[in-house]
């Protein structure tokens, strides 16, 4: 830390003393650092690669120029207001653009920058293609200081992402967005917030740069080359890390400045090669290389020094006498296929209901409709007597409806602690996150490996961890999708033990889909059999398993 402070002081002091060329280089470097940090928030942490963040840089530059010229605002104030303009633009665009994932988002942003360039090329109030000239008042030192403060703010925001629970929410988007929804992360809100921050920072940088250069035109304001450089800095330094953007931008700016003298026209080509080489040879960038030696590691978020004992959740007051879950005539159609056909199901308090049926009978779709992953075509879902069909998945999870997936969907690069913590943050014990997380980890037998990365767990433990994540929500209804599949006898026994203990943990009802009937027959109070989307039988397991209809449709007749 001290070394970093000294280094920072040197970097601040040298350009200030020397003025001229070094001051300009210093300002440009700080601008690059800001752009890199801004991109990293949405591209690195949330995993939404944007090839159009330059849009915000350009909008900020124009906003500042117009505010200075037309509203006679002082430049520093104008630059700050531009930050708000960038944030507002990101809020509006984010709600549209962030519906898209992966390449679509990346290319949509690239297209957006193009649209803005054409708009500004034709907007006479903003100088059209000639651009705007600002009064040539030289304030290089003040701009340098302003850019320095901005870079510092970018660093602090990133530090908040790396150390806080909110940061964990953002990173969960990059890991598995659907799983994040299922544990109650309000994904849209989280990514829009990250996008707003990632739009505001380049907007201010663009504003300061416009003032510094006393000139702005559409070509330089929306130059796709700026995006390339930003991406290069982040990738080279280390994507999704606290130090990567800083290291990448500073190193490449200095190297570029020394090196490019010899290749004046090939700058972007060389940076292109740097991106390619980084992605292929060391995808974690410089920070990734440092991580191999245990340096600059990301801290485990909100992790205490040692695992505290934790305490079981206080019993919440019961919700009246309504059944936990009541599904009435639920139908799900995909085009011409009716996957679930007017199925009704109720789970009373203290009841465990098991849904069985052949592959393709519609069991998982039924679950998906109840948790809100799939929109039902018709039918009603009541949770403690309240209709919940209008609620998004994450709200259902927050209210205590927890599910596991057929194939465990953990956050692969998180630690055990973080996986459980993420769910605890959004569940019904969110007021005592650390204690509750610790209790879940103890209860589920993870005390000895709570700091381990998930990738190091055996498949059995991964399943168990998903179960732990379900408990972390402190749910009232637990929905298990084939938890026993592929487990050894011992592992099944372990899971059966946990299912038996569920009432202790305040869980009012359990619904499970299962193929390993022997492992659940004695656990469940009732069995429901689905066949081609229809309910063909229901009742106590001993009766259902003997029902000739069920035997014919699913179990098979003895030969």
């Amino acid at each position, binding site marked *: 830390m001290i070394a970093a402070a000294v280094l920072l002081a040197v970097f601040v002091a040298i350009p200030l003393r020397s003025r001229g060329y070094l001051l300009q280089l210093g300002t440009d470097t700080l601008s690059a650092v800001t752009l890199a940090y801004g991109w990293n928030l949405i591209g690195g942490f949330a995993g939404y690669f944007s090839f159009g963040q330059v849009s915000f840089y350009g909008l900020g530059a124009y906003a500042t120029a117009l505010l200075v010229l037309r509203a006679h605002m002082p430049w520093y104030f104008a630059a700050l207001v531009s930050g708000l303009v960038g944030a507002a633009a990101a809020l509006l665009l984010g709600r549209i*653009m962030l519906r898209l994932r992966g390449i679509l988002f990346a290319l949509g942003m690239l297209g957006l920058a193009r649209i803005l360039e054409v708009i500004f090329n034709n907007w006479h109030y903003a100088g059209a293609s000639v651009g705007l000239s600002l009064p040539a008042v030289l304030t290089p030192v003040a701009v340098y200081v302003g850019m320095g403060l901005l870079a510092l703010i970018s660093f602090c925001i990133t530090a908040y992402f790396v150390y806080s629970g909110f940061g964990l929410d953002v990173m969960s988007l990059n890991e598995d967005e659907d799983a994040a929804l299922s544990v109650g992360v309000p994904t849209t809100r989280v990514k829009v917030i990250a996008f707003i921050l990632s739009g505001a920072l380049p907007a201010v940088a663009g504003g300061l740069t416009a003032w510094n250069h006393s000139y702005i035109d559409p070509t330089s304001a929306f130059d796709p080359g700026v995006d390339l450089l930003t991406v290069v800095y982040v990738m080279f330094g280390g994507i999704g890390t606290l130090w990567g953007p800083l290291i990448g931008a500073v190193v490449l700016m200095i190297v570029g400045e020394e090196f490019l003298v010899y290749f004046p026209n090939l700058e972007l080509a060389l940076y292109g090669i740097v*991106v390619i080489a980084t992605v292929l040879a060391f995808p974690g960038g410089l920070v990734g290389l440092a991580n191999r030696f245990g340096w600059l590691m990301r801290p485990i978020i909100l992790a205490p020094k040692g695992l505290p004992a934790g305490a079981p959740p206080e019993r919440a007051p019961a919700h009246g006498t309504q059944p936990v879950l009541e599904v009435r005539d639920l139908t799900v159609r995909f085009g011409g296929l009716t996957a679930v056909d007017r199925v009704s199901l109720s789970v009373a308090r203290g009841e465990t209901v098991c849904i069985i049926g052949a592959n393709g009978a519609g069991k998982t779709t039924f679950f998906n409709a109840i948790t809100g992953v799939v929109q039902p075509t018709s039918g009603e879902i009541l949770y403690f007597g309240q209709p919940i069909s209008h609620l998004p998945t994450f709200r259902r999870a927050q209210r205590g409806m927890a599910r596991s997936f057929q194939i465990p969907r953990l956050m692969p690069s998180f630690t055990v602690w973080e996986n459980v913590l993420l769910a605890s943050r959004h569940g019904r014990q969110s007021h005592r996150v650390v204690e509750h997380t610790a209790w879940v980890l103890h209860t589920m037998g993870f005390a000895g490996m709570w700091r381990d990365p998930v990738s190091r767990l055996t498949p059995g433990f991964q399943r168990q961890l998903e179960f732990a994540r379900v408990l972390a929500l402190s749910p009232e209804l637990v929905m298990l999708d084939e938890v026993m599949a592929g487990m050894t006898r011992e592992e099944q026994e372990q899971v059966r033990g946990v299912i038996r203990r569920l009432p202790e943990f305040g869980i009012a009802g359990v619904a499970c889909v299962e193929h390993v009937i022997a492992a659940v027959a004695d656990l469940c109070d009732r069995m429901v059999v689905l066949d081609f989307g229809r309910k063909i039988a229901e009742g106590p397991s001993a009766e259902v398993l003997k029902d000739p209809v069920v035997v014919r449709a699913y179990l098979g007749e003895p030969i």
Partner: protein
Amino acid sequence: MLALQILVNGLLLGGLYVLIAQSLNLIFGVMGVVNLAHGAFIVVAGLFTYWFASSTGINPLAALPFVFIVMALVGAGLQPLLVEPLMKMGRSKAELLSLMVTFGLDYVLVELALQVWGSSFVSVPYLQSSWKFAGLDFSQALVVSGVFAALVSALLYWWLNRTDSGKSLLAASQSETGAICCGIDVKRVRMLAFALGVALAAAAGVLVIIVEALAPQTADDLTLLAFVIIALGGLGSYVGVAVAALLLGVAQSVTGYFVGGNAEYVLPYVLLILVMVALPGRFRRA
């Protein structure tokens, strides 16, 4: 009559777009990779053709077979070097990282093209006049390139659906595991798809330069144009993409006539954003 003329021009332009988009679609379909250097390959081939035709005086179309073969080899060389290593990382990660890699490649190619040919717009003075037929003007350059492009696309479609090698490519695009189980060498198929995609992009470049002026910096516009078409037509769908390309050609020709050149230029991007807003489900791949 005017309406018909605009329609004809649009369809001819659309024929060219079919090739521009189909070549990107081929790579995307098989590998889930959007090749951001797509436009750069088009531009490089186009500018090479310009250089070839203007310095030798030979018919620019004569460059087509040569450009096609050379660029196929370039594609076959680049794919194992740049894209194949990413395929091990799982589909969604490979998609994003290949975007990064081809983004870098795009800049390398564009900067090199700027070094060789400079930044001014050039076009090949070839087939400048037009044919008159049934009261309509058919720009010769547009007819030749539009028809040529449509033919090459049709050939591609035939190859994909009627030949063993084409079918194995389609198979690999639908299910990699399934294709492996049928004894298809998926690695080789991916290389073939990339090489063919690059070569077809280059062929499109030769045809584009006959119709309109190109400069290295237009590369990204071409990439986006191609992407917009495949997004509108349905990712990975060959018939949908062909229809979308023709429609976009007509739409551009209509806006270009009634609104102006700027509107014609931004139309694809506006359409892309509109479709994103109105039909977000269109972009979801299972």
